[in-house]
């Protein structure tokens, strides 16, 4: 491990491949330095976070420093993922940002009731999406501190 510590990871749960490509493009444009890991439904997101199934080999190291969550997904939806993450002692420290096309007040209220960290309405313009990715990367990966249980030993070895 070098002095910068392990690579920073962002988990992005998004079922629509067009959306995943667009998020990747916007992320690359945003100047944000991190690995963007995609999962395509809520079940897979939980496998990733709990290191189950095909993610078992990942071990407990390098949990993502940010979860970007879509709400409408097959198998398990974003609400279910959020509920499980926020009721787990270790995972609940990982910031979760919901990225949704929903503008329904009921959705916004209910994810905040489940302790989501931010709710963002997916913009309809590419440059807005780039800006959002830039702000998210800047704030959650550079400004805030997370506990060691998520990021490992911050001082390196």
């Amino acid at each position: 491990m070098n002095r910068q510590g392990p690579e920073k990871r962002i988990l992005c749960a998004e079922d629509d491949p067009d959306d995943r490509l667009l998020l990747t493009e916007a992320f690359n444009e945003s100047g944000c330095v991190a690995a963007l890991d995609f999962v395509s439904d809520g079940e897979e997101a939980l496998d990733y976070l709990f290191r189950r199934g095909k993610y078992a080999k990942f071990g407990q190291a390098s949990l993502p420093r940010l979860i970007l969550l879509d709400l409408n997904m097959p198998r398990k939806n974003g609400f279910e993922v959020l509920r499980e993450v926020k009721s787990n002692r270790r995972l609940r420290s990982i910031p979760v940002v919901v990225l949704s096309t929903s503008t329904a007040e009921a959705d916004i209220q209910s994810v905040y009731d489940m302790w989501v960290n931010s709710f963002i309405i997916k913009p309809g313009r590419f440059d807005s999406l780039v800006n959002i990715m830039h702000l998210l990367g800047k704030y959650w990966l550079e400004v805030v501190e997370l506990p060691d249980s998520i990021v490992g030993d911050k001082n390196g070895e």
Partner: protein
Amino acid sequence: MESERIPLLLVDDDEDDHIIVRDLLNEIPNNKFALDWSSNYGEALEVIRSGKHLVYLLDYRLGEHTGLDLLNEALSQGCQAPMILLTGRGDNEVDAEALRMGAADYLIKGQFDASLLERSIRYAMKHKSVENELRKVVAELKRSNRDLEQFAYVASHDMKEPLNMVVSYLQLLEKRYHGTLGQEADEFIEYAVQNAMRMQNLVSDLLRYSRLGAGDKPFESVDCGEALKLAIQNLRLPITESGAEVTSDNLPTVQGEKGQIVQLFQNLLSNAIKFRCEGTPRVHVGARNKDDHWLFYCTDNGIGIKPEYADRLFIIFQRLHNRAEYPGTGIGLAICKRIVERHGGRIWFESQPGKGTTFYFTIPTQAEPVKKAKSSAMSRADLS
């Protein structure tokens, strides 16, 4: 030929009256009416609840109760059959009250013969069936209207996502390949981006408009002065840019949905500023008390509206100017109309082209949300 008999119920505590009515019915040639008799209030209610009779004849005097009490109770229990009140001579006030409460007719005891009784019963039945038919049609219209609104909502909601994709990918194309595909290609992409973005605006406005119909927030006290202040705050950019002067009287507090009242002022002010003449745009908002409602007005010194456009002005997506002159989707006034109507008021305008326009709208002093019929087809709760 034996056809279906028409069951009647007479409610009367006097047996002699029962005999009189029975005999009158028997005088009718080919009498089709079958008369049952109930002599007290409680028993009569039971029988009415069973719903076996097509017409009820209610005596006004029923011991401790009156025929009006019975009428009222039967109606509140959902009785659909017509009720005719039998009253005494000189009971004009009772007669009027009975009709007001929903009686089909009244007959004055001792003053009706067989043919009048027959006609009253037949008219009452006819009247009731027309009324029921009308009620069914109105309910059906409300339902289909509601379904149409839901359709607009669902359609605009579901169009939003793919449209966002189109715009975003076009913008990505523009960003990555600008200057490499030739000037013509750059122009084509630019037109595509512009129009896809225009469609985005139309769809999001349509969504906003259809959402207004779905609002079921209860009304609260809204200080219109404060609502206007919020609207002005939201418009500070165009107000500053145009140098507009916005003034107002003291505005009343009304019963309504605050967000919608703010939106109403905001759309009216925004139009007043957008459609301005040379010189300083001036907008004034005022209100007058008119007994059962408030009359609001918003008057400007803008370009005005030709009277022949009056019919089109409040229709969704109707525009009187081309987009190069005045941008917009043509939804602002449609939204205003919807908000005012939801508050039980109406909206109209007076204008002198070249001099200015005054928009008027009313809000009842005791406003309640105008109810909509429930839809059966689609549910908004399924959407996110």
